[in-house]
């Protein structure tokens, strides 16, 4: 009996296995129902709802000032950007123009948030692929950003520093100095990151050519953020629809065409340099001005629909507010980047190994509360 005949006699069966909701490589309570044949994945079905808190419904109950703090709890790694998205939408509805000072401070903190988020992602990506050291190095540098936030905003993660019309209070006197110190420190650390992980042969073998997402798929599934830019889809909201102070800074939109896990890794690593460059352009000349435009104690948006989108660390966040003229919104909808990015996971993970799925998921940088809301 030849080998071929022997293989034909052995029957294999597909079976289900749960990955999550408490899987260490799933970054939170994401449950993936895998249909596998041996170790080959045939189907990936994400099962959501483990951390659903009905934030959109709670927004209908709250006033416009109170909505802001709920968005901290969506994508908690880019909480300041989420807050800004809501504030920009409300400001659009009220037709308030915030001062230049507010715009610049918001942009600087946005970029610091992006660096902190990418730092965490880099550490966790290394850890998912078996390199534990990267986790500690990334958290060491992220700690400095958290200190900046804690000193200025009062909180490390759920900052709630934005209010409709500006900022809750002015930046701390140490803010500029600390940010400059961090940038000088961090510039020496990114090459270290590259030496530690980017060039590593095991890391490269596990990421190159794995989880390829084509540009057509990225567009048709609504993928955004660094994930889409690694496939060559120019989707940076900061570039195409500038908000806050992004229209007055020079930065490159990082585009790769490979669309594999390594390209997604490289996009984020190069975005770190772009974020540093944006902060450097703004930090030395923060204009003087008021930090909060005058708003009424009870904000009532005019009747109508308002939409604003921003670029979070994970992609495009859209905030839709439908107002009937009351102090509460009639309907709030968040278009979160994580949800759309997750939808493409099944498409690109067919007939790959489980280990490759872990690498792909790590490069997508999911935050589960952002997907479930």
């Amino acid at each position, binding site marked *: 009996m030849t080998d071929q005949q022997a293989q034909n006699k052995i029957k294999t069966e597909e079976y289900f296995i749960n990955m999550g909701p408490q899987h260490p490589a799933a970054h939170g309570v994401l449950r993936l129902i895998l249909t596998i044949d041996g170790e080959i994945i045939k189907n990936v079905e994400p099962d959501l709802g483990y951390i659903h808190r009905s934030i959109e419904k709670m927004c209908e109950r*709250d006033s416009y*000032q*109170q909505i*802001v*703090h*709920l968005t*901290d709890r969506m994508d908690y790694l880019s909480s300041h950007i989420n807050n800004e998205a809501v504030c920009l939408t409300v400001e659009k509805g009220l037709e308030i123009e915030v001062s230049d000072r507010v715009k610049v401070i918001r942009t600087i903190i946005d970029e610091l948030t992006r660096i902190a988020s990418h730092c965490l992602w880099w550490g966790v990506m290394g850890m998912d692929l078996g390199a534990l*050291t990267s986790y500690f190095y990334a958290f*060491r540098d992220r*700690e400095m950003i958290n*200190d900046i936030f*804690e*000193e*200025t*905003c*009062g*909180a490390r993660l*759920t900052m*709630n520093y934005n*209010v409709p019309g500006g900022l*809750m*209070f002015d930046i*701390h006197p140490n803010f500029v100095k600390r940010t400059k110190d961090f940038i000088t420190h961090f510039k020496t650390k990114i090459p*270290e990151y590259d*030496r*530690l*992980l980017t*060039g*590593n*042969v*095991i890391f*490269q073998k596990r990421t190159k050519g794995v989880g390829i997402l084509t540009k057509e798929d990225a567009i048709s599934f609504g993928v955004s953020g660094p994930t889409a830019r690694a496939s060559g889809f120019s989707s940076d909201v900061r570039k195409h629809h500038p908000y806050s102070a992004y229209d007055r800074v020079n930065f490159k939109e990082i585009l790769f065409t490979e669309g594999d896990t390594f390209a997604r890794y490289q996009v984020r690593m190069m975005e770190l340099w772009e974020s540093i460059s944006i902060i450097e352009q703004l930090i030395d000349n923060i204009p003087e001005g008021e930090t909060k435009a005058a708003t009424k104690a009870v904000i009532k948006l005019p009747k109508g629909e308002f939409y604003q989108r921003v670029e979070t660390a994970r992609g495009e966040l859209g905030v839709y507010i439908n107002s009937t003229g009351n102090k509460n919104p009639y309907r709030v909808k968040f278009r979160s980047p994580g949800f759309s990015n997750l939808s493409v996971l099944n498409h690109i993970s067919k007939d790959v190994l489980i280990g490759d799925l872990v690498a792909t998921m790590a490069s997508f940088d999911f935050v589960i509360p952002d997907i479930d809301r």
Partner: protein
Amino acid sequence: MSYFSDIYKGIKTLLTGMSVTGGYFIRARKGAITQQYPDNRETLKMFDRFRGEVVMPHDADNRHYCTGCQSCEIACPNGSIEIIWDRAVDPETGKKKKKIDKHIYHLSMCTMCGLCIEACPTDAIVWAPNFENSVYDRSALTKVLNQPGSSVLDGIED
């Protein structure tokens, strides 16, 4: 031939990575950033703006600044603040005046958003940098912020 060069290149990248970790191994004491909590409690100082819990400062005569306007209660998104108020008769003018009986703060429900402190017109409540909030019973986290027998400082309402 490429087989051997792959092995050579692979080992080289591993050694490059190990040179980073090895550098930290040699300079371990210099770069250590770990805080030895709770042994460093005496020296550990939180930032001025740190949001730990809401407190109501009282002066030496047991007086506070809270007029009972309930702005904080309205601003709070999740009902962490409850104010039980009363009307007191002013002995001089005979007018009835609003005063707080109890300013109840549920620390267990608070999300530290800071909207109450922003809303307070008299700065009667402020943040305290206390973060050691673990208790054995949940009811210990429901606090009455105004001290017993305290009264509002004169002239705050005007």
